[in-house]
């Protein structure tokens, strides 16, 4: 009793050991902390891709000619397409409706004649517009293939191809335009939200539900110690999850890591603190695992998924939704993650986003500390 600091340290140590023992014994905590990240990474790494390849296209050549053949050969040789020939438009349309093909390219019977006339020969292209995003990518690919064919066609016949402007494209940072390269780093933010907010909210609510908190607050333990006792174990768990995810991203999914690991770890710490703080605040408000779980999923996990810029572009959202995204911590961290992985240590991105995270972390901790009850009421 003569060494209050020593006692404080002893209490905190006791709480942390307790938490780790509980994590080890509870399969659902372990599941959320380790199995879920691996599961999500594998699912996203392998299952989710926005890169269309081998798109089945129907080609209808109404009149076979060497020109038409060379045109369809351009599609046959492209790695983007798998071309299927149809005898007439009707059959092709049926195939489109039955989802056997994603687009139809039709050269009418007068294609050859028009090709050598003054008018441009129209090539009819129909894409299945149900999936608008894919449709747009496919029509882009078709355009590119057509363009190449045109240049080749002109060169073979010695025709000067009048093209007033030519586009010269350079895609920076992810020049291979692999969707995995931005999905996997973004997923790290989602996984850390899961460990930080959901797990913390659940375990804290469990203490309320099982009545263990009642016994806990009747001991000399202070509120700060209880909060730290939750924070430190789940911080370590969350950083473990982050390192695991980074390792999987780099070694398994071959995502380039151009920036430094230190920047990731430091900003990851900030983000983890925000997630933990939110988890604590939720559980203090809910005091019940079921409700805490629901709230955590709705206000942390889903927004991290949808409104963080992880998949969907924030700038394209309606202004009202855009302003909501400023309240979502994952937004800042996703920006940092995608940048550090693909563009390197760009301080102009890292610093403002890290500051936003720091501010949010402080806010949630202050809130948790204020709202954490010292008594049962």
């Amino acid at each position: 009793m003569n060494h209050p600091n020593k006692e404080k340290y002893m209490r905190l140590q006791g709480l942390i050991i307790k938490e780790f023992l509980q994590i080890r014994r509870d399969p659902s905590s372990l599941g959320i902390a380790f199995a879920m990240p691996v599961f999500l990474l594998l699912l996203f790494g392998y299952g989710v891709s926005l890169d269309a390849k081998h798109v089945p296209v129907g080609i209808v050549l109404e009149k076979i000619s060497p020109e038409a053949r060379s045109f369809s050969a351009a599609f046959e040789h492209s790695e983007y397409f798998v071309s299927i020939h149809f005898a007439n438009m009707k059959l092709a349309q049926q195939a489109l409706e039955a989802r056997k093909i994603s687009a139809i390219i039709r050269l009418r019977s007068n294609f050859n004649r028009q090709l050598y006339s003054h008018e441009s020969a129209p090539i009819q292209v129909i894409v299945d517009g149900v999936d608008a995003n894919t449709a747009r990518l496919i029509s882009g690919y078709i355009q590119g293939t057509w363009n190449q064919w045109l240049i080749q066609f002109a060169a073979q016949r010695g025709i000067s191809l009048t093209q007033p402007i030519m586009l010269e494209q350079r895609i920076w940072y992810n020049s291979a335009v692999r969707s995995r390269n931005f999905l996997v780093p973004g997923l790290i933010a989602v996984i850390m939200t899961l460990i930080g907010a959901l797990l913390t909210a659940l375990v804290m609510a469990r203490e309320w539900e099982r009545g263990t908190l009642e016994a806990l607050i009747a001991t000399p333990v202070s509120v700060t110690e209880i909060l730290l006792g939750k924070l430190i174990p789940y911080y370590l768990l969350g950083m473990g999850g982050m390192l695991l995810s980074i390792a999987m991203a780099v070694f398994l999914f071959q995502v380039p890591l151009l920036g430094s690991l230190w920047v990731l770890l430091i900003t990851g710490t900030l983000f983890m603190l925000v997630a933990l703080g939110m988890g604590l605040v939720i559980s203090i408000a809910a005091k019940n695992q079921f409700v805490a779980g629901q709230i955590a999923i709705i206000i942390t996990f889903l927004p991290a998924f949808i409104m963080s810029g992880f998949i969907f572009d924030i700038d394209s959202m309606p202004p009202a939704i855009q302003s909501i995204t400023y309240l979502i911590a994952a937004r800042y961290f996703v920006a940092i993650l995608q940048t550090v992985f693909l563009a390197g240590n760009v301080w102009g991105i890292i610093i403002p986003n890290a500051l936003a995270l720091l501010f949010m972390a402080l806010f949630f901790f202050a809130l948790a500390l204020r709202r954490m009850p010292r008594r049962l009421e």
Partner: protein
Amino acid sequence: MWSRIYALLIKEFLNLLKDKKSRFVLIGPPIFQLFVFGYAATYDLNQVPIAIYNEDTSIASRDLIAKFNGTPTFKEVLRISYHEQIAPALDNKDVLMVVHIGQHFSRDLLLAQHPAKVQILLDGRNSNTAQIALGYAQTVLSDFNIQWAKQHKLSLPPAKLEVRAWFNPNLESRWFIVPGIVGLLTLVVTVIVTALSVAREREQGTFDQLLVTPLSPLEILIGKAIPGLVIGVIESSFIILMAVLWFKVPLVGSLVPLYIGIILFVFAVIGIGLMISSLAVTQQQGLLGAFLFIVPAVILSGYATPIANMPPLVQDLTLINPLRYFLIILRGVFLEGLSVSQLLDQYWPMLLIGILNLGMAGWLFRRRMY
């Protein structure tokens, strides 16, 4: 038998609807998700910030810039005056794209010896966004080309593409995403309702109380399945209504093929929910089980990313996912107006999955009764 099942149903509905928490689960998250997904989940680009670096001060280059600014896709937020400004603008995500018009642009254009070059620099961190922006830029340029060729009586290229999108002429992502939400939310609500129902009774001890009554396992199973079915159908009807009235997605087809799909889908999903239910002892386990099923089911359904882009093995895996078929039905009926006969290939797998799942759930139920 039916009067007992009726009593079970009344009890089940009262228990679900009188409790503030479970009422909230049925109403709160779905509405929230509907709006978040409906508005935030879009691949369409809108008012994307771009920078213009124009080294050529001719009317032609100004025309071109006006074309970029004239589309709703792009919004010029930055005018660059020297080369060193490009990198920071892209690095710091101030702009997604830089349109660079070189100083020889108008000269090349007027001489028409070789094409004038316009350089487009893109932030590829989100490769999907980059590719779509590039597609839009391409369209802007080819429009300009055709216009220029016509104005200056230049010969037109020998062939041109006439691209038309069926079923969704303006390629609006929302038309694709919102019908998908019907499937997504119906899945979530139905699974949660059924997966937690037995666990909740186990925790409260009322399950034992049920088991000592003359109710048979089959009756209890039916008593648990029907509320899921009713709630699933109501939930999807509500979202369909919102999709049509609020999000203005056209409903081209008729309701008959749609509702056959909804009932078969909910039927298949209830089986999964009840399987989770008979295995879970606590509500937390039930929730975790539901989560473990829902996440892959959504990701591997074609909801947000096309199944065709997945590796072949994963594509085969999606065949056992009822949501895969339901999404095709939803989008098919909404946008394409498919009929019952055209959707038979989607109906029977769901029916099969449903029968297998419910059979399994019934078997597990009997075994896990004690």
